[in-house]
């Protein structure tokens, strides 16, 4: 594998050529699914993000990395529609996005997991994942109260999807266990399951491997790649562990102090001097 490609490609054709040279999978050359253009985000006088642009392509695993406080989670929250940037545009599937509530964005096909697990602790694994189906439920409260008939049929359909996810994530044995009783690594997996239940086009993962041991990390990596491969879900993830990112991501965006300092395949990013400086520190003179 060559390490001399340092510049990020600017056109699709260039990407394709580079990917071919790197022997990567062909699906990364999919069309642009999400594009963020010149995003700047301020909290009062604090500049969290400054003039950030990058894109996410159909079917790829895109990582956002950076040291602590680089603005990774803010970036994810912008994509997610939770923060509204003062400047810049977010384009999703060919449409410019105006101000939207997070639940409207969820309906557009974007799902996420959280850095600090946000599950319903007292509910079972099955019920937690079922909540992920909420945006897909059509029957209103009255139907649900009558229950027999359409509402029941609907629940059976949703249950089937949920069971497939349980099977996929290999969590059959904890199907009926309240998630509060589960170890951390498994809770993370349940949270991934809930995000998957929404059948997202774009899945945002906020530090999916934080606080895990090596074995749990390996499992999680495998699930992320399997999700990407089996369901064709596009994945954008934030991660601290560089080794993990370099292994599973197709392309990586590097942030530092709210600015973009690198963008490209893992190999390109790894060999970029600016990125090395940001991670290892550099003497300022």
């Amino acid at each position, binding site marked *: 594998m060559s390490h001399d490609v340092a510049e990020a490609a600017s056109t699709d054709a260039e990407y394709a050529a580079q990917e071919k040279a790197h022997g990567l*999978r062909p699906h990364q050359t999919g069309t642009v699914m999400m594009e963020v253009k010149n995003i700047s985000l301020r909290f009062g006088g604090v500049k969290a993000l400054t003039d950030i642009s990058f894109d996410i392509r159909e079917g790829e695993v895109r990582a956002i990395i950076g040291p602590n406080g680089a603005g990774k989670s803010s970036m994810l929250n912008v994509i997610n529609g939770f923060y509204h940037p003062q400047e810049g545009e977010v384009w999703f599937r060919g449409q410019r996005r105006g101000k939207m509530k997070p639940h409207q964005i969820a309906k557009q096909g974007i799902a996420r997991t959280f850095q600090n697990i946000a599950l319903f602790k007292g509910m079972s694994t099955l019920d937690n994942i079922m909540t992920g189906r909420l945006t897909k439920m059509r029957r209103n409260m009255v139907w649900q109260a009558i229950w027999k008939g359409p509402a029941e049929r609907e629940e059976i359909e949703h249950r*089937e999807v949920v069971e497939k996810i349980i*099977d996929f994530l*290999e969590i*059959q*044995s904890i199907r009926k266990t309240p998630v509060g009783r589960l170890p951390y690594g498994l809770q993370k997996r349940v949270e991934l399951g809930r995000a998957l239940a929404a059948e997202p086009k774009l899945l945002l993962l906020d530090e999916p491997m934080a606080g895990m041991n090596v074995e749990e990390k390996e499992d999680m990596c495998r699930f992320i790649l399997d999700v990407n*491969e089996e369901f064709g879900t596009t994945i954008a993830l934030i991660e601290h562990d560089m080794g993990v990112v370099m292994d599973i991501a197709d392309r990586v965006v590097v942030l530092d102090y709210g600015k973009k300092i690198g963008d490209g395949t893992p190999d390109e990013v790894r060999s970029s001097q600016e990125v090395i400086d940001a991670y290892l520190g550099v003497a300022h003179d």
Partner: protein
Amino acid sequence: MDRKSGPDRDTFPKLLRYNATHRGGRPASREKEYGIWQTWTWAEVEEETHALARGLMALGLAPGEKMAIIGSNRPRLYWSMVAAQLAGAVPVPVYQDSVAEEMQYVLEHCGATFAIVEDQEQVDKILSIADRLPELRQIVYGDPRGLRNYDHTTLHPYSEVQETGRKRKSEFADQVEANIASGTGSDTCIMLYTSGTTGKPKGVVLSQDNIIVTAMASAEFDGLRETDEVLAYLPMAWVGDFIFSMGQAYWCGFCVSCPESGETMMVDLREIGPTYFFAPPRFYEGLLTTVTIRMEDASKLKQRLYRHFTELARRVGPRLLDGKPVSAGDRFRYWLGNVLVFGPLKNTLGLSRVRVGYTAGEAIGPELFSFFRALGINLKQLYGQTEASVFITQQPDNEVSADTVGVPTPGVEIRIDEETGEVFYRSPGVFLEYYKNPESTASTKDAEGWVATGDAGFMDPATGHLRILDRAKDVGKLADGSLFAPKYLENKLKFFSNILEAVCFGDGRSQVTAMLNIDLTAVGNWAERNNIGYGSYQELAAHPRVYEMLQENVEAVNRSLASDTMLSGCQIHRFVILHKELDPDDGEMTRTRKVRRSHIADKYAGVIEALYDGSKSVFANIEVTYEDGRKGSIKGDLEIRDVKVFPTGQSEKVAAE
């Protein structure tokens, strides 16, 4: 219904046809998928199996070839065994948790041309050794997950193979029918690799007659019928699973259920409620440990109820089970206990409906054995071997005890060698040969068909039951000439819930010493209740109070040995608690979790030396193999303790005896 293996029921393909015709609508296989039990009737199983067989033939599976089957218990993998036979090939199930190198030995030795495997994990293992398996041509996998981007020139999804078989029915159906018609009882049925307690695994070749006649005799012995239910959860490569889930299931026509995954086994057990159940002593031990731990966390009232009624049950339960006279008052109290305690407990454990329960493989603790019998579960012991198609002896109903293994199964003859005490047997189930290993075949099976078990034992004159002492080659002598039976000692130690594994040394030495493994569940729970903090297995194992507790256990064993005139010289003088669990991945145990003595003697030579040179502690650096094949090491200082020994003839009774 006829009860003899006639020409229409002497092979698995014929039995499948028989069951599909005579009980086509009855359930045959069951598997939980997406949380719901899916059932296949015998007629459906026949269709699935035949379609698969035709598909495999279309891929080029030829008569006489070997087909490896690797995966956890799945109906599809069970069907593929008969599908291989329908195509004239021989199925070779392989332990699914073996690492790639172990798998390579078996696949290479049997010369498998086809492999049917469960999922990506197994496909990856085979692909990693494929360059060393020139004869392997095709791989079929069940679960397509993660395999989409693999090169599919020699790799095929199971469903596609079956689909081909359905489409090209006209081409291959006649050949399949001809194979069924020409099959006889003397054909090779299956090849099973022994777990290899000593050296490389050996391929045991068993004929259709071996399996079917044995299954028939043993099924008759226990009155098994088509309405029985079993849960198939033990490794498919183990002969026992083949007899229970295939042999007896096909003979009697009962339904075999497969758990959703290894971890859900307990839930599935409860949902299925098997009527016929086999488990190794280790499993029952695990159950009792869980029950005990959960009772200790229960409310005072529940604890008192539990204690009161289990005491009553220990006295009354076994008598009731054996049909011995019990007073009306006790009967009523037992009934009450059943309503309040035993019934719900058995239901939670999934053992409510067990009519016939077996255990084998290792000695079972008398305490443990009587606990389950007290609850009214008809738990019995059997003694068997791969080479015998399992059954050598088994305990009849009402003649059960913890220290014997029963009377010979109908059709089996037993002979005890007068000089060495080794047990020999001759039966219709005796294997044809070890594959490609005539020397071992000749040394195990003599010209008259007598097979050496390698176990030393004797027929109990009082009951006529066989009693097994130890492996014949392991029975040794101490330096002063007294008898040394290591496994007998180890079992006595393992009956204590704190001790998971034990290895005793003493052959040719002046005294007996032991290496112990703590049981992390039991000791960990004990530590929690006693406010003992620990950060790792190693730390807990080295804790002085754990040492004290185990020292008491070892002393209790010594005290009971002192009363046994034959074995009083075997009292344990010194012991050490190991800082790591003995593990099959490190070659210290077989896949069926039997201790590999010689290997341990080499690996732990330093520790053993310290056990005999009087030192108070020893530094040990032991190599371990992780599941992905990488190696590492665990090191630490191990304390060695001296234990009190008792003079011979002291007949103090111990609670555990």
